[in-house]
């Protein structure tokens, strides 16, 4: 296992790891505000067009949305377990769990793609390309634009999270992480939990609050 490097400005590794973890939490706070702006818009427009929003949400595939929620929560649990495995020195288990989580993330994106495709089939495109004949009106269009914005921004975060998880999987396969040397691993898992927790708010807003 390569030795952990102590940067010049820190006096101990504990402090350095604490700083890194704290820094990531601070960053996540900033990320939350990024989504908060979209959730704020959603709330405002939902109050403006309550009926149209409920009807439009009814068009979303609640089965896919719910399965995706389960998938993400499962993947969050498995990366948490992977961290536990790294702490215990169970290298193979850790990398296996991370690979499983990556699989979940990919599956999530595939299902998301299926859902987007269903919308496109129905003529529900973002912006001026929208041409659904049943769900008309400004409220419905705004709902779907917000749907694309929120899920799109979330999907970008899923993709970034998957890249991070790949790095974790590669690192644990090569033994870069181990007991007492899991700080960076923990950072990666924290980011993945953000992806999960944002989705937990997306799910009721876009799928469950329906007619």
């Amino acid at each position, binding site marked *: 296992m390569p030795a952990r490097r102590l*940067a*010049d*400005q*820190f*006096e101990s590794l504990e*402090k350095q790891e*604490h*700083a890194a973890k*704290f*820094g990531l939490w*601070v*960053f996540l*706070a*900033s*990320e939350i*505000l*990024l989504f*908060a*702006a*979209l959730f*704020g*818009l959603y709330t*405002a*427009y939902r109050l*403006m*067009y309550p009926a149209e929003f409920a009807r439009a949400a009814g068009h979303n595939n609640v089965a896919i949305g719910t399965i995706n929620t389960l998938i993400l929560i499962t993947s969050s649990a498995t990366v948490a377990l992977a961290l536990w495995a790294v702490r215990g020195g169970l290298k193979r288990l850790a990398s296996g769990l991370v690979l499983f989580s990556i699989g979940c993330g990919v599956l999530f994106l595939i299902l998301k793609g299926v859902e987007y495709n269903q919308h496109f089939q129905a003529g529900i495109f*973002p*912006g*001026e*390309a929208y041409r659904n004949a049943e769900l008309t*009106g*400004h*409220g419905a*269009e*705004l709902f779907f*634009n*917000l749907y*694309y*914005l929120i899920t799109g921004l979330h999907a970008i975060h899923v993709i970034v999270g998957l890249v991070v998880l790949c790095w974790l999987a590669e690192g644990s396969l090569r033994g870069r992480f181990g007991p007492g040397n899991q700080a960076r691993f923990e950072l990666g898992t924290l980011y993945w939990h953000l992806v999960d927790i944002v989705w937990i708010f997306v799910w009721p807003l876009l799928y469950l609050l329906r007619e």
Partner: protein
Amino acid sequence: MSEERDYRDDPGGTSPFDQANLSFPPDYLRDGRGIRSWLLTTDHKRIGVMFYAIIVLMLGLGGIFALLIRTELLTPERTVMSASAYNRFFTLHGVVMVFLFMIPSIPNVFGNFLLPIMIGARDLAFPRLNLASFYVYCVGSTVTLAAAIWGGVDTGWTFYVPYSTSTESSVFLVAVGIFILGISSILTALNFIVTTHTLRAEGMRWLDMPLFVWAIYATSIIMLLATPVLGLTLVLVALDRIAHIGMFDPRLGGDPVLFQHLFWFYSHPAVYIMILPAMGVISETVCTFSKKPPSSYWAIAISSLGIAFVGFFGWGHHMFVAGMSEIDAGIFGALSMFVAIFSAIKVFTWTATLYRGNITFTTPMLYFFWFLFLFTFGGMTGVAVATQSLDVHWHDTYFVVAHFHFIMVGGTITAFVGAAHYWFPIMFGRMYSERMGLLTSTSVFFGFLFTFVPQFLLGNAGMPRRYYSYPPRYQWLNVVSTGGAYLLAGALLLTLINLLVALKWGKRATPNPWGSRSFEWMTAAIPIKHNFETPPVISRGPYDYHLSEEQAHARTKAR
């Protein structure tokens, strides 16, 4: 080996010769040569200096745009440019001054340079992230300025919809540029917050930190939490332009007022991003040049956090005439006035600090007095425009322009230039010409007054902001204002020249030329790469003027 180096390890000043044959590490300016050692540095001081250079350039650019606007306004009709060129120039002036100069100015230059030294750290917590922030800033400012050349932008710096989603000018590119600049802000803020939490020297408690650190810390919190909202809002405007998502477009069911809410949710706190660091500078200056601790350390530190907190709830006062109910306007007005309470706490504390102080009238101290006067003036008119009945009259007039320039120029730029003088010795190891400093400082003040006092009168007389032509009865005030602007610009240019001359020919500075007790002055005349040879241990407060300089040094050293 020059003489001032010897003081560093020998604060008692016994004899420079005792240590003459010890080898000292070179100072940060000489540690590594060549352009690569600068461009790839992770030293917070060098990054601060790089920011310094580029930000002064931006100030110059924004100033030139300001002069062009003022020149155009010399006569009621066309003077030097067309109306559409005028629209582009006032937009550019706002965008450059707000996003490229003012927001990064004090935090990224002086915060970067001094925050680690003040808390006894060897660097920021994430030095590479700090360098990344610099380059992200460079990319963002390039994109933003590219928009200026590529068609220009004529929306004003506020990008109000629906005009910003329908105008032909290159709003898209500017929105992208500002989004990128926001990333730089967030990275820097994150770095400062983590550094303040984790890298304070042994023995330094939160209430032992210099007040400048508190101010930068409060600023960082605002940057961290408000910037993403602005970034996202501008991305929505950009998307609206290319894909017509209609998020703020009334033709598509969107609500333009929502844009204003989101925009001011960032941009009102952004005002405090601009002024809080300035207040930090002022707190340091007044203590150093009065040779006294602040009359209440606690009041200044906590009111910074108070402003940061309340600042998030005042944004609605920009929208009193945008269809807001009277109750909402009343609530937003009252919340805005809380900011005035916190600011007044600071003003009174600074003033009380002077009482029975041992005051030296140096250039930074003169800037302190200008700041105190102009900021109070700007703040009081701020309370006035936070009152809805008055705001209906003054809204979108030159009164508002004058009000926020009193804060932004009279407050922030005054403090920025004051800081440039105050910390010049530690940053570059030289002394500037005090006589020129006092002269330029006085000219800055009078140039400022001549520029902006007429604008209060213009606004009160009903001249709207951003107008190209105006009735002839407003002309004499506009002429005075333009004359003042040229005086102000000339004075700032002379200030720059004075500092540049000092950089090359200035007298060598001693490590603590002002006789301050603040921690940044306990290093060498020019700090070494990692600031301290041994990690300091702090056993005193930053304003312990009852201690002699020797004692003060002794209590910041490892025993």
